[in-house]
């Protein structure tokens, strides 16, 4: 280890795993009392069904993850709710969450959809971007517990219906750029009546509206962003986008962007290294499933599930379609291997949204968490007070074969967003799950801490894209990437947490997007290593 570059800080392990269930909902006991409000009016307004996300991020730089919850509102001429619903910020004080919205300066009363996090000005404090049905908002973290609305100044207030967004460095200039995924051109005025197969009035789907082009903002590094959607090629291709993940699909050192479109072929924007992108999803085999069907892409994540050193794409879909796993051959070419890997099995009845590759049991293999909830009438459940609710799912990765772990989640909900991170800093992955029109859950992991692990904290909130390679003797290297995007409309912990299984740790290599590699040896397992550049 080079002492000029690194400071290692040992973080105490606080929450021993005792329970039999792999996850325990600790929202109520930890003070997370957020309840989402979708403003359901009976008019079947499309956005009512599509929210919402949340974020796990350390806004006060005190070493633990705080939480932000996106809130809905009332659309149309509905009776206003008093007080007006607003997004809420909770500070984590040793796993006791305190609502600090009032003092934070965050005043998000729009019809919220999602959230993205990143340090837009490289001041070491993570900033917040909120996507809305309506103009989006950028909030700068002042570093003193408050945020300032810098939407106007940054020029990032895309007025269209946006759902997910991703901060990533498109041009490797050290400043975070922003990809905003827009959905469809729906409005209260343009709200046609749609019907279920039974002839009952139902919510419309994306095919009933024109898809929107997406937006790419380049960070000028002076506190403002330039809208480069047209110049980059992004705006040329409208798509009903919902989920987004930025990662290096072809391992050329430049970050690419994958967008899950709802009912239309997904995009794989390959970075051309000159400020432009080209959608190669079709030829790359990641636009539609093996049979050529465009599916209803909702949530998305990329991760090296088969431990071969490249990242594979997992996309969640509507009921009646399977979730899809596109396996990367290492060159940015993909194959739909959903059936062979087990990813498809058990997914057909679910409309799934938030998801992530997480190694929940720290055995060294990336598992899958998926939250689900229907978007349209479930005819068999008319009369049920929660007719859209579905149960979340956990798939365990048994050496490249995904197997659903039965009975882990028992309480159904209308799952939408999910944010992932080690909330209690005990070395395993916890999950914040956001439910449409329902209370959020904080799923604390009870089993991961039983296995050995190593954590890498970038220490620089604005540096996603860093690849962490963990070397273990006699076992394949484990590749993980620091990122906050992916899932659905949500932002996650940028720290990289790597389960080591029963293998000892020999070295950790850090690969930066520019090609620079650092190697650390002699690190103790069971700790977060905080990496700070001088």
């Amino acid at each position, binding site marked *: 280890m080079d002492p000029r570059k690194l400071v290692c800080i040992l973080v105490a392990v606080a929450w021993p795993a005792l329970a039999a269930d792999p996850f325990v909902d600790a929202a109520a006991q930890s003070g997370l009392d957020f309840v989402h409000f979708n403003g359901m009016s009976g008019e079947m307004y499309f956005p009512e069904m599509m929210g919402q996300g949340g974020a796990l991020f350390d806004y006060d730089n005190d070493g633990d993850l705080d939480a932000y919850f996106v809130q809905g509102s009332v659309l149309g001429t509905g009776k206003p709710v008093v007080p007006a619903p607003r997004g809420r910020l909770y500070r984590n004080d040793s796993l006791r969450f305190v609502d600090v919205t009032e003092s934070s300066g965050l005043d998000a009363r729009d019809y919220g959809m999602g959230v993205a996090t990143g340090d837009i000005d490289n001041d070491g404090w993570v900033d917040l971007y909120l996507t809305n049905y309506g103009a989006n908002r950028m909030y700068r973290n002042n570093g003193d517990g408050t945020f300032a609305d810098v939407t106007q100044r940054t020029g990032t207030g895309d007025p269209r219906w946006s759902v997910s967004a991703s901060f990533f460095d498109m041009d490797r200039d050290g400043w975070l750029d922003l990809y905003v995924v827009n959905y469809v*051109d729906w*409005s209260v*005025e*343009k709200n*046609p*009546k749609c*019907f*279920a*197969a*039974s*002839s*009952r*009035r139902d919510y419309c789907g994306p095919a009933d509206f024109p898809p929107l*082009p997406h937006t790419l903002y380049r960070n000028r590094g002076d506190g403002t962003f330039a809208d480069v959607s*047209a*110049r980059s090629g992004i*705006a*040329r291709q*409208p798509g009903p986008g919902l989920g987004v993940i930025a990662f290096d699909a072809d391992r050329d050192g430049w970050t690419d962007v994958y967008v899950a479109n709802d009912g239309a072929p997904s995009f794989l924007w390959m970075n051309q290294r000159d400020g432009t992108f080209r959608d190669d999803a*079709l*030829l790359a*085999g990641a636009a*539609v499933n*093996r*049979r*050529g*069907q*465009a599916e209803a892409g909702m949530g998305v994540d990329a991760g090296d599930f088969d431990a071969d050193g490249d990242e594979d794409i997992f996309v969640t879909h509507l*009921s*009646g379609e*399977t979730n899809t796993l596109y396996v990367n051959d290492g060159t940015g*070419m993909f*194959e739909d*291997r959903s*059936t*062979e890997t*087990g990813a*498809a*099995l*058990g*997914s*057909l*009845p679910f409309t799934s949204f938030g998801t992530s590759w997480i190694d929940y049991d720290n055995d060294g293999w990336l598992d899958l968490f998926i939250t689900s909830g229907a978007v349209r009438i479930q*005819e*068999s459940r*008319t*009369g049920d007070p929660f007719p859209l609710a579905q149960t979340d799912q956990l798939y365990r990765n048994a050496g490249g074969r995904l197997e659903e772990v039965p009975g882990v989640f028992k309480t159904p909900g209308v799952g939408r967003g999910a944010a992932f991170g080690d909330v209690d800093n005990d070395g395993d992955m916890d999950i914040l799950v956001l439910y449409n029109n329902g209370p959020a859950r904080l799923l604390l992991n009870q089993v991961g801490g039983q296995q050995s692990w190593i954590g890498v904290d970038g220490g620089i909130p604005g540096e996603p894209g860093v690849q962490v390679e963990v070397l273990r003797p006699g076992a394949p290297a484990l590749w993980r990437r620091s990122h906050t995007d992916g899932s659905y409309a949500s932002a996650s912990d940028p720290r990289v947490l790597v389960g080591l299984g029963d293998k000892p740790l020999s070295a950790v290599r850090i690969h930066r997007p520019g090609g620079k590699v650092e190697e650390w040896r002699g690190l103790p397992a069971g700790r977060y290593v905080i990496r700070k550049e001088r």
Partner: protein
Amino acid sequence: MKTLSLLSLLSLLSLQSLTAQTTGQPPGVQPIPAPSLEGLEPEVAAQLRDARALIDVLTAPAEVAEAYGELGRLYHTYSLSEAAAAAYANAALLAPKDFRWHYYAGYLAQAMGRSAEAEVSYEKALELQPGFVPGWIHLAEVLLAGNHPDDAERILKQVLGSDPRNAAARAGLGEIALSRRQFREAAEHLEAALAAAPEADRLHHPLALAYRGLGDMERARDHLAKAGRVGVRPADPLIEELAQLRQGEMAHLLRGRVAFRFGRFADAAAEFRKAVEARPASVPARINLGAALVQTGDRRGAVEQFQEALKLAPDNGTAHYNLALLLAQDGYEADAVKHLEEAVRIEPRDGAAHLELAQALERTGKSAMALIHYEKAAGLLPQDERAWMGEANLLVGSQRFREARDVLETAQGNLPGSGRIVHGLARLLAAAPDPALRDGKRALELALQVHAARGTATHIETVALALAESGRCDEAAEWQGKAIEAARQEGPPERVPPMEKELARYTAGAPCRPGG
């Protein structure tokens, strides 16, 4: 195949007997969930109510079985799946030798993601009727979804043995080969499937991936370009019967939209007309009927339907828009403008309506208003070349060259592959009356780009203009000569003299800048 007409049976029964209760259902018969009928179309609710009531008045086991089966089919048709599954189960219990109820139960379970149940039901159905090919195809699909490719392959090969041109079997075998990375075999099967069912254009996608696997990227790209949304559908009379059970306005609208999408406009119009009959006040039914009538050539009928829709819903932007298009085509421009103005008032974000309005206004000489709507259309439809070109042309026409150039620059950013936009920009950069707007080098680059794609006299002349603007008079003269030659061939002859005049200027040597 035996079918029971519900209506004829019902007509034999009195109202009293409909509400009578039977006693002593056979053992094992399960209660059928009663889905809520609230919010359903009245015809649909009545249809379901009657079919359910029928069970209670029948006593002969064969008839009760048939009634359960019919009830299952109705629930299935309207996606009331749990009730459908229970009804099929009762039908199969009471008539275990009737393969239909096992088959429908399998099809339903497959759609619900209950693969194990689907497999069992299909197997029972096929034991009873082994010659029913769609059943084997669906069983193979279930096995494939459950990651049992070997079993699926065996079944599909058996199907091919008796029907070598079966497109669904070929497609399934292609998919299996693709999953095994046996790309050559996959390509062979998928090519054969496409030959048997050329309308199944979705198959081009897996075929492209097979060629990609073989390293033939050119063929892969070629097939990707042809890939569409239509998959292979095995001819399946039992499943087709389900769609015919639907009643009410929505059923006809649904069938009509499917027919319209596949270009069967007369069928679509017939279905939409039935939807209007089912609910004369239905605005969507009238608008759809109007759209289908246009396609069948009945323009007068279409106008009537759109006018009727507007009587029912004066603020329906789609009806205004559709009516305006017909009026404009028939030369009633002023009326068309009126309806389009209504359309954009009702839906200010309707880019297509703004574009049509701009074009109609331009045709009637109202350029200033047209410009406003072209600008809005370009903002709303950034991928529509017509909006950008309309705006740029009107700006040029009103001598607002700098704005025209800016519009074309933005348009080119959005549509770099548009020859018209690139050509318009090249022309402006080469020959704008304001020399400050010119950029000969860039004009030449753009003009050559367009010329490479399309070399008409106009495009050649633009290269000459760009060369002249760059001070390369000899080359400009050479290109202008070629342009004149091309113009003589293309006609009309009156194009040529002004071009010759320009050639003389180029030949005279520097300075030869356009307009100089």
